């Protein structure tokens, strides 16, 4: 992976992380203006549509709570459908944020700076969407709190052997740490906004979460320690969350679920999906806000490379699943994978390969990697492909398992789609609020990347 280290060897030309000609002041002006200037015209329809979609979610949830999950397509034997597919999909998307923020930070990948804030926010929103599903998909959602270990008159703990309980811990921890990490990183920028805001109300509203940040050396010191600690904390989470999510399947005995390769390949898949989603969202926003100077060719190329690498890991996972189904000699496994490729859901599987394997190979080409259009094209395929992957895992494994009399078919209903589209609405609504109200690129970190800043008194907070 590319680094910024000045190595003695002659390197191919790499585009800079910040476009030339910027000073710390212009960086601040440019980024904070996104928030402080008048709302751009396009924002209203964009947010409006997202909000309408969010209303669909409310409607779908109301219907769901009143009627029961029978409005969805789940049945016997396919007890899990869209809800779990979407849960895993959203959680996967939520991985890019932490990876970019924490792991790349620890690996001193400076190019991460211009996308980390945005990616972290996206993580939070994706986790919020994901977090809805496990509750919605319960037969009796009003009893969801029974999954928490709390002292109660029934004298009962949750059942700790169940991966669903592990999920509760994994996801809630992830959500909490991600939020703290994102918020901590925001504090200096909130102070900047507080200082630059003209409106009284804005000053107050930015001032409160800025927690009295004045940029003193002590503040910077504390900040750096906290940020580094949180980065250290989140790093294992990147691996653990999707590992635990994959346990939902691997602990089950259903052929197609019960596989040891799931944790690594789920994590790789999550990063893959996360980067695809970051690109999907960044590319239009970058154009809309004119941030080409901060999100440069360099970022696009690097993200393309990460996608290519993780995508190949995922494809390796697919290959290994089939290999072990054959090599293991277990009839049920063999049947499950044969059924995956040749059964009634074979088109889903074929589309999955197209989206996750064939199309991303375009990223080998530098031209594609550095073209916003090419990247957008590929990342949309990956978004769909990762959704299909979860569909294939959840549905095709369940629909024909051990006892052939109980085989069945699954199809999402209009309410399944409404819920899914509704969470997209929730995600986009939060996102548009975020880009309008908070700096979507870390101002103070960007300032350190301006060539002038190198070696100056403000060190990169490491």
């Amino acid at each position: 992976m590319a680094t910024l280290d000045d190595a003695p060897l002659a390197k191919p030309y790499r585009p800079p992380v910040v476009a030339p000609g910027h000073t710390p002041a212009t960086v601040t002006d440019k980024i904070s203006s996104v928030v402080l200037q008048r709302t751009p015209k396009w924002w209203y329809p964009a947010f409006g549509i997202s909000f309408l979609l969010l209303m669909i979610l409310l409607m779908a949830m109301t219907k769901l709570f009143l009627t029961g999950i029978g409005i969805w397509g789940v049945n016997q034997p396919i007890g899990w459908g869209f809800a779990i597919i979407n849960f895993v999909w959203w959680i996967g998307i939520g991985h890019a944020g932490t990876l970019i923020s924490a792991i790349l930070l620890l690996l001193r990948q400076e190019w991460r700076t211009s996308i980390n804030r945005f990616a972290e926010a996206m993580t939070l929103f994706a986790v919020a969407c994901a977090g809805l599903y496990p509750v919605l998909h319960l037969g009796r959602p009003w009893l969801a709190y029974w999954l928490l270990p709390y002292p109660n008159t029934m004298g009962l703990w949750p059942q700790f052997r169940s991966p669903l309980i592990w999920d509760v811990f994994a996801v809630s921890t992830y959500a909490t740490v991600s939020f703290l990490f994102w918020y901590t990183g925001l504090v200096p920028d909130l102070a900047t906004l507080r200082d630059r805001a003209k409106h009284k109300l804005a000053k107050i509203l930015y001032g409160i979460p800025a927690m009295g940040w004045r940029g003193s050396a002590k503040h910077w010191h504390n900040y750096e320690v906290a940020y580094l600690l949180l980065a250290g904390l989140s790093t294992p989470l990147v691996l653990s969350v999707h590992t635990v999510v994959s346990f939902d399947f691997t602990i089950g005995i259903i052929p197609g679920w019960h596989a040891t390769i799931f944790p690594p390949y789920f994590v790789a898949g999550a990063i893959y999906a996360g980067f695809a989603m970051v690109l999907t969202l960044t590319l239009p926003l970058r154009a809309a806000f004119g941030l080409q100077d901060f999100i440069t060719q360099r970022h696009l190329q690097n993200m393309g490379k990460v996608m290519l690498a993780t995508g190949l890991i995922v494809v390796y996972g697919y290959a290994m699943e089939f290999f072990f189904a054959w090599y293991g000699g277990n009839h049920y496994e063999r049947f499950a994978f044969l059924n995956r490729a040749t059964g009634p859901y074979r088109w889903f599987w074929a589309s999955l390969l197209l989206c996750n394997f064939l199309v991303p190979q375009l990223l080998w080409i530098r031209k594609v990697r550095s073209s916003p259009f090419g990247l957008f094209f590929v990342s949309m395929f990956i978004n769909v492909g990762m959704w299909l992957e979860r569909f294939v895992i959840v549905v095709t494994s369940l629909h024909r398992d051990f006892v052939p009399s109980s085989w069945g078919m699954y199809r999402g209903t209009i309410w399944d789609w409404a819920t899914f589209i509704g969470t997209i609405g929730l995600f986009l609504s939060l996102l548009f609020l975020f880009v309008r109200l908070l700096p979507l690129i870390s101002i103070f970190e960007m300032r350190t990347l301006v060539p002038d800043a190198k070696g100056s008194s403000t060190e990169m907070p490491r």
Partner: protein
Amino acid sequence: MDSDHGVKGKCGVEASRRPEAGAPLDLEELRERLRRKRGPELWRSLEELAGTPEFADMLHREFPRQASEWPEGVSRRNFLQLASASLALAGLTGCTKQPIEKIVPYVRKPEQLIPGKPLFFATALTHGGYATGVLAESHMGRPTKIEGNPDHPASLGATDVFAQAAVLTLYDPARSQAITHGGRTTTWSAFTTELGEQLRAQEALGGTGIRLLTGTVTSPTLAEQIQQLRTRFPRMAWHRWEPAGERQSFVASLRAFGRPVETRYDFTKADVVLAIDSDVLTRSAGSTRYQRDFASRRYVRSNQPRANQPQQPVSRVYCVESLPTNTSTVADHRLQLAPADVEAFVLALAQGLGVAGGAPQTLPQKAVEWLKAVTADLQAAPGRSLVVGDEYLSPAMQVLLHGINQRLGAVGSTVLYSEPVEVDPVDHLVSLTGLVQDMNAGRVEILVMLGVNPVYTAPADLGFAAALAKVPLRIHHGLYEDETSERCHWHIPAAHELESWGDARAFDGTVSIIQPLIEPLFEGKSVHELLALLAKQPGVTGYDIVRQHWQPLLGGDFEAAWHKALHDGLLPDTQAAPAGVAVAGGAVQQAAAEVAGSVARTRAQQDQVRLCFRPDPTIWDGRHATNVWLQELPKPITKLVWDNAVIIGPVTAAKLELAHEEPVEVTWKDRKLRAAVWVQPGVAPGVASLSLGYGRTRKGDGDQDEEKTGQGFNAYALRTSDALWTAPGVTIRGLGGRYVFACTQNHHAIESGIQSISPQGEISEDSEVRKASEEAERRHILRVGTLREMRADPDFIEKEGEEPPAEMTMYPRYEYKGHAWGMAIDLNVCTGCSSCVVACQAENNIPVVGKEQVLRGREMHWLRIDRYFYGDFEEPAIHNQPVPCMQCENAPCEVVCPVAATSHSDEGLNDMVYNRCVGTRYCSNNCPYKVRRFNFLRFSERESPLYRMLYNPDVTVRMRGVMEKCTYCVQRIEQAKIESKVESQPIPPNRLQTACQQACPTQAIAFGDINDGEWDVTRWKADKLNYAMLEELNTRPRTTYLAKVRNTHPAIDAIEAIEQRGAAERTDDGHS
């Protein structure tokens, strides 16, 4: 039920009955109706109670009719006067004095009644006139469950599906709930008054104009009453029409013996059975008993006999058939032949045995070899062999079978002839035709129809409905307002058999007294009470009528004998007398010639299909059309629910270029019916079947929701009097499109890309049905072997699977010190009759979900019967496998539940704690046997309040969002444990039975404490045939199976082996 009155009226469904505009609201009638409402649905609300069109009309208007009828030119002054008066009067309602109603506890408790403890009453339920002795379970006065009466010869403790579902009919909200005249609610006294007048007029004429129409009658009391009626009206006539009655058997018996004779079989003595297109095990009057007898010779498990019977050699059963039957699922060999070939086969058999002459028949090569083997086998066991057909064979074929059985020496041993059980047996078709002629000729003044629905069920060519319109007074008595009652002046609601006194005879003639368990819910009248009215004995109760009949007959100490008869549920020594009859030789020759003619005719019409009408396996002739348990009970073999279908084989489908589920037009002579086809493996070429009872236009009151009452196609519209069971040449024309059938097993044939019937009539490899069967065989889910294999290697079944060592688990092994409950199911004798499924539903308050939800794969049955096709898929052997919860010791469901809602008891039960369940459905996903059922919607809450009376109070009713599954009837286990504690005695072995086990006619299920060697289940599990489904998963199921072992004939075995190898090669090619 209640609200539907309003809805119906509003929608204008009954627009014809809506009163003329301006007719005043009949408050009198309303009060009357209100007075008649009683029972559990008391005080819902006035509107609901008064389900009259007037009321609906009133609801429809913004103001009551009276209020809106302003006189012309209302002045402001008038308006204000009225308005102030209304205001003043409105206040007055507050002054109404509430009526004083006292509630009183039991001062003296009724004898025997202990709250919370059920009582069992011996009674009988009839089906098609024939009785089955049952024990009805009553909880605090509510009948909740039917069990078989172990002392009754037609039951021996088991039941069929109809008896199990009878309690649901009792509480069916669609039952008619009031006497109606011209569709308007009226009173019994109004009826008696009018009828009295009419009858007096008839008296002078000797009753020439009076006609009775009933189904098959076996009731001695009813017979006597009709006799009495004849003394009052000597010229009255009594007609019979039982739509699914045994009319062809009757004709055959006349032809063979010259008089009506009842044919019974004794399967216990039969070493060799040849069944010809026979569903005698599940579709005849004695089928529950036959199944028991049949099974008694089919137990291969070593540790039988039960109860000191000497172990008899296992019988050998051959089935030759064109339509798959339950009988063939337990046969050793099944030969699938086109209808003409079946007839030719029987004729050739008769010729081979020297019973009949005539030209030799040409048969397919396989059938020829079969015939050789079967003939030899039958002849080798003289007096211990049996050739059995059933009602649906043509009379000529049945005569041939009588002749064959006589030649085989079966008569008196395996075949028993007795005097008829039916009172005054007649040819029902002739009887009904006579009635229609009389009606058309205007000779019928009063027609009383008792428990029949001839407008719907009469042969289409008779024109019954048109003839009926010519009768001046038409009275219908029945449980439901139906197609017939719509065209009658009077409809009298009938009392259910659980509500009324009566008597009836079983298939062998044994008499049972029917006693009521509950007062009629809707003031229904029993048939006896109605006849008493005709005989000018108004006000006599059913109780008195039945007692008066038996008083002189029981003699001696009548009270003691009566009491005993009620207690035992039968009158001893009342079997029908044996009939010493012999087949007339000429009759057989004539029959042989007729069959030969039929064969030739059928073979000449290659392009036509023989359409067979059959009573539906679950809703019979349509009488159970509103019984939702039976509607949602998967029909054996097809596994269809809520519908009937034109069932054809793949070859026929290919030939006629029909797709699975394609709508078709069936033409028989000049009659047409639009229906849809269901392509079923196991159906021979050139034959189609369509079951009766569907496509009804009026199925009773209340819930007329199509989804809830089933749709289907009216077979009666094609069924003419010359083709009661078989329409020899129909044309079936595809209409394109798709009719959606709901099926509970491998329904997704189309979606999975089957369709795929090749031009040769082969069902494609992709077909889910086919793949499922092949996989089941490969996975050793349902294990089948032969006796020869077993003798060569007793462990051969065990060797099919691979049980992992017990220590292969992370968790410490639990020692079950007390009871350890387990179950074993003997696949060898499971006929797939499905009694167990309904019994489970009744016992465990299992909701019904409707066709649409079944289509989504959400049926709730805790116990299902899986069906697989083994061997050559074009001519498969069909197998059944009942699947309840396996109660795994290493249960995969338990580990994954996040809230511990399913956990293990110290007796090895995999308990489901409904209260704790949050509904993640992970347990169901992780269940390899897929036996868990989830309440996706409010399945239980949606049900009618009447159905709530039916609930077993010992079983929780589950709410939406909760998982449920088979509990091994844990409530019964707890009951037994409490009793044993009270009595300080251990639970006596084999005393405790699960609901499915108790209902099973073939005793295919054993349940009990596997820690105790005294229980049958422990012995079964020790058998070499015992295996666990998917044992390699190390789930350690407590439910295990005894493999199916076929007692094959070596010669036929060889033919089949060759075929199977061919099939296997084909399959392997497909997969390699």
